[in-house]
Structure formats: structure tokens, C-alpha cells
């Protein structure tokens, strides 16, 4: 879990879970929103990492 990717994924899962439960009442809706949020977190992480990769610092 202590790799950068592992920590990002664990963080995404937990925070997305809280937001999904907070924002939706039905378990199915919570699961759908949670999955979308995790995908957005991890996808944004990869995108930002890819954009920053060429920077020399």
C-alpha cells in the first residue's frame, strides 16, 4: 500500500465512499456514485501525473 499508486487508490476509495454515502440514500445509487468518483480520482491522478512528467523539477 505504501507505493504512490497504492496510497492514491486507497485514499480514493475511502474518500469516494464517504462522499457517495453522504450524497445518495440508496445503496445502489451510492455504489454507482462511488465507482464514478473513484474512477475520477484515479483518472485525474494519472492525467496530472502524465502532464507533469516532462517537467524537469
Amino acid at each position, binding site marked *: 500500500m*505504501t507505493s504512490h499508486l497504492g*496510497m492514491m487508490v486507497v485514499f480514493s476509495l*475511502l474518500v469516494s465512499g*464517504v462522499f457517495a454515502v*453522504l450524497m445518495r*440514500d440508496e445503496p445502489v445509487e451510492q455504489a454507482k456514485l462511488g465507482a464514478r468518483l473513484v474512477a475520477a480520482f484515479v483518472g485525474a491522478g494519472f492525467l496530472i501525473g502524465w502532464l507533469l512528467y516532462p517537467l524537469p523539477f
Partner: protein
Amino acid sequence: MRSVAADRSGSTRPYIVCVVAWVVPGAGHVWMGRRQKGLAFLVLLTILFASGIWLEGQLFPLDPAQPLVALAGLADMGVGVPYLIAKAVGAGMGRAVAVTYEYGNTFIIVAGLLNMLVALDAFDIAKGRK
């Protein structure tokens, strides 16, 4: 899912619910009859906070001389009882040279801030707004 007698009057009950929700993550929702949400908050926020401690994050002091540190300390306290337990057992000292230090701080701070949001949600439910 929907539950409970919402308090639309001006009583102090919503404020008590809010404080209880802050002290024990998810307790406000359980009190308001939303057990599934409350238990989910308890599990998720506790794991988030405990992961931060495990990743060698730090529980920051309320130092007025360092406003940003004090803000981080306030956010840390937002998680309630887990914060007090960690303090009591001497956890959360932080090891700044650890590669996971900043990740740990992020986990701990976000756990506290999210619990504040959860407490406000419990307050809204108790007020009958949701």
C-alpha cells in the same frame, strides 16, 4: 432509509446531534435512524484516520504562532474520538523523513474535514432539511 422525527422547532436537539456526530463518526446518522449511513461513516472515516497514523502522519498542535499548523491541528481534531485515542496512546507523532509522511498527514486531515461535513449533514437531518 428516511427516518425519524426531524426537529423543525428551534430546540437544541440538532446541536446535540451535531456534537455527537462530531465526537463519534457516524453516530449522528445512527441517532437519526440512518444506520447504514452511520455505520459506513464510522468504518470509512476510522480506516482513513488509522491509515494516516499508520503512514506516519502527524497530529498537529494548535500552535497560534504557526497559523497553518494550527489549521491542520483543527482539521485533525475534526475526526473526534479516534483523535483522542491516538493522542492517548501516543500515536501520530509523525516522522517527517518517512516517505509516507505527507500522505499520512493528508489522510488524517481529510478524515477530520470529512467528519465535520458528516456532522453538518447530521445537523441538517435533525433540523428536517433533508
